[in-house]
């Protein structure tokens, strides 16, 4: 019998802190090596962590909502097999495992109990009557004693919304870090162009009729993903990411193989950018299926780490309630992002006549280290041509 330490493996490139979302096994359950054991929330998604060994889960060291970092031990598995290096085979059977992150219920309370709030009797009485927490009041009496006036002031104080003391969720923190990095390090420029949807709307209805009822409905996003993939294939210079320090000799552009495209999805606490890989090989029906699957799991926080990596370009479509046009910030290390304004009927000139057509404004934000205005303009022009054309691959 051997005790094997279950650790948090390094799954993504920048993953450091995780929060335990749930344990998929209970203490006493048998687990098989490679079988999902727990779920942790990383910066961008919920990741399943696989059991490090086959055996019996004997102790959970980090409870749900507990924090851990890569390399931290979160459980002990008692394995019948003999293990070599890399496991805790040498650990003595009854060794007290190091507690990585104590559960909130045991950590928070004693610290609070130790404090004695100095207060006057009448201040306590008023605070109790009005349900005011004395601990939240700065006493102005001798030695910081909370007095009647202090409680009265706390009651009278306009109910200002407490400045957001809520700590960032891992996702929010990742968002903040990515956008700061984007704005601070990527020189970004934009090119914009209108796209007309007349043709695409007709085709969408036509394709819908041809697809089985059970298939996911085709959305404009699916057409956008296929069009971007094709344009990327035609302009491989844009299908790349910038790497290294712009001022150093190791700065280079890394070419991508295949069109891997992120789709920006708004969730309650921020954004998710699930990546659909090798889009250039997929028909609209398959794009729709993968897109729906990614979005559904993303909304539930169940995207796997690798499903959020590897893209060179993202598409951000705020939909019917979105603005006429907007500029998006590049999601590092990608090199471009396409912002799709809402579709609306516009008066346009067509063959010398004034007509009304459904249009959207497309705004492409590009990393100037990777591409210049001419390339971006050509790419966008081609993209619009694809979107307005009839050349689509359904299956």
């Amino acid at each position, binding site marked *: 019998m051997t005790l094997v330490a279950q650790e948090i493996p390094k799954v993504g490139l920048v993953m450091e802190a995780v929060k335990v979302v749930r344990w998929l096994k209970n203490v006493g359950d048998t687990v098989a090596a490679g079988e999902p054991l727990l779920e942790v929330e990383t910066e961008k998604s919920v990741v399943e962590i696989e059991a490090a060994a086959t055996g019996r889960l004997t102790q959970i060291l980090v409870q749900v909502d507990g924090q851990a970092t890569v390399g931290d031990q979160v459980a002990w598995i008692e394995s019948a097999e003999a293990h070599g290096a890399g496991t805790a085979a040498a650990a003595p059977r009854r060794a007290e495992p190091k507690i990585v992150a104590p559960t909130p219920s045991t950590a928070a309370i004693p610290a609070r109990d130790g404090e004695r709030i100095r207060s*006057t*009797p009448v*201040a306590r009485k008023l605070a109790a009557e009005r349900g005011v927490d004395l601990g939240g009041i700065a006493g102005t*009496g001798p030695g910081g004693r909370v007095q009647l*006036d202090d409680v009265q002031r706390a009651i009278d104080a306009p109910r200002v919304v407490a400045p957001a003391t809520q700590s960032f969720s891992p996702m929010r923190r990742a968002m903040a870090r990515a956008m700061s990095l984007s704005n601070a390090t990527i020189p970004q420029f934009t090119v914009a162009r209108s796209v007309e949807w007349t043709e695409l709307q007709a085709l969408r209805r036509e394709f819908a009729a041809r697809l089985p009822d059970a298939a996911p409905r085709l959305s404009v996003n699916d057409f956008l993903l296929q069009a971007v993939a094709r344009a990327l294939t035609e302009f491989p210079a844009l299908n790349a990411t910038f790497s290294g320090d712009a001022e150093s000799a190791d700065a280079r552009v890394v070419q991508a193989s295949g069109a891997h495209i992120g789709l920006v999805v708004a969730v309650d606490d921020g954004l998710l950018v699930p990546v659909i890989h090798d889009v250039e090989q997929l028909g609209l029906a398959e794009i729709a299926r993968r897109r729906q699957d990614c979005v559904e799991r993303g909304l539930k926080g169940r995207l796997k780490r690798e499903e959020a990596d590897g893209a060179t370009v993202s598409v951000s479509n705020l939909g019917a309630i979105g603005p006429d046009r907007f500029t998006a910030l590049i999601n590092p290390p990608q090199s471009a992002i396409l912002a799709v304004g809402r579709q609306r009927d516009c008066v346009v000139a067509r063959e010398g006549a004034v007509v009304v057509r459904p249009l959207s404004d497309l705004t492409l934000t590009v990393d100037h280290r990777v591409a210049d205005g001419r390339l971006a303009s050509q790419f966008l022009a081609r993209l619009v041509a694809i979107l307005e054309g009839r050349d689509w691959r359904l299956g």
Partner: protein
Amino acid sequence: MQHTFIEILRRALDEELARDAAVYLLGEDVAAGGAFGVTRGLAQKHGSARVRNTPISEAAITGLATGAALCGLKPVLEIMFIDFATLSMDCLVNQTAKYRYMSGGQLAVPLVVRTQAGAAGGAAAQHSQSLEAWFIHVPGLIVVAPSTPAEAYGLLKSAIRLGEPVLFVEHKRLYTMKEELAVGAELPPIGRARIAKPGTDVTVIAYSAMVQSALEAAQKLADAGISAEVIDLRTLLPLDMATIAASVSKTHRALIAHEAVLNGGVGAEIAARIGAELFDELDAPVLRVGCGFAPIPFAPQLERALLPGSADLVRAVRQIMGLAE
């Protein structure tokens, strides 16, 4: 027209002698007016049988007055200085205060013992003390200490009419204080304090001459934006806790001031009761101001230095309010 404390006391005694034939005055030199002239002229007006000089023996004359009261008279005995009341203590504590209880209510002692206390003008250690706290220790006694001439007029009349043994403590510093006397005013009841000055921030509880110091302090505090309520206790036994409670429940802060030393004093009694009965109303510790724990010096400068005054009250109130010096 304004009258001094002494003139107003004399008038009250005069009127009570005229009103009730059972009332009579006795004491050392009272027929000649007494040491401070309170009874001057009353022997001539009401006859030497009703305003009687006594031998210089406080023990004897307290017993005499108690006996007269038991036999149906309403004596008003003058003990020249409260310092000499030590000699009256045996009778007052063991006899006068006990008759009603030990006779099962069949006997009453309608006796008023007028005396004067406090320090003023270098009367020295044996003629300047404030010993009222000794008497509030005794069940069966009533202790009254007026703060102004008009108050003394009404309270003395009420004491004479009460039908119980009353120690009526006058302050010698107030004797020259002048005040208008409202004719036909209702007599103040014994056992009821009064609000000498209403306020909202702090309650200053005082009696006798210290009420004047409290009012001075309240004026200075008002200039600093602090509203002090001054309670004149008037009666020290029984204590009017209802008035104190109403005030402290409003201000949530209390200071007790008296000229007597703090040890075992009236202030200690009140502070303890506030602590027990009004704990949940307090927003600051209850403080007391009193005389330094020393005999009253003869030298006027030392006497002034030792006695508490309005500046001490202001300082104590500021401390209660949490204001730096």
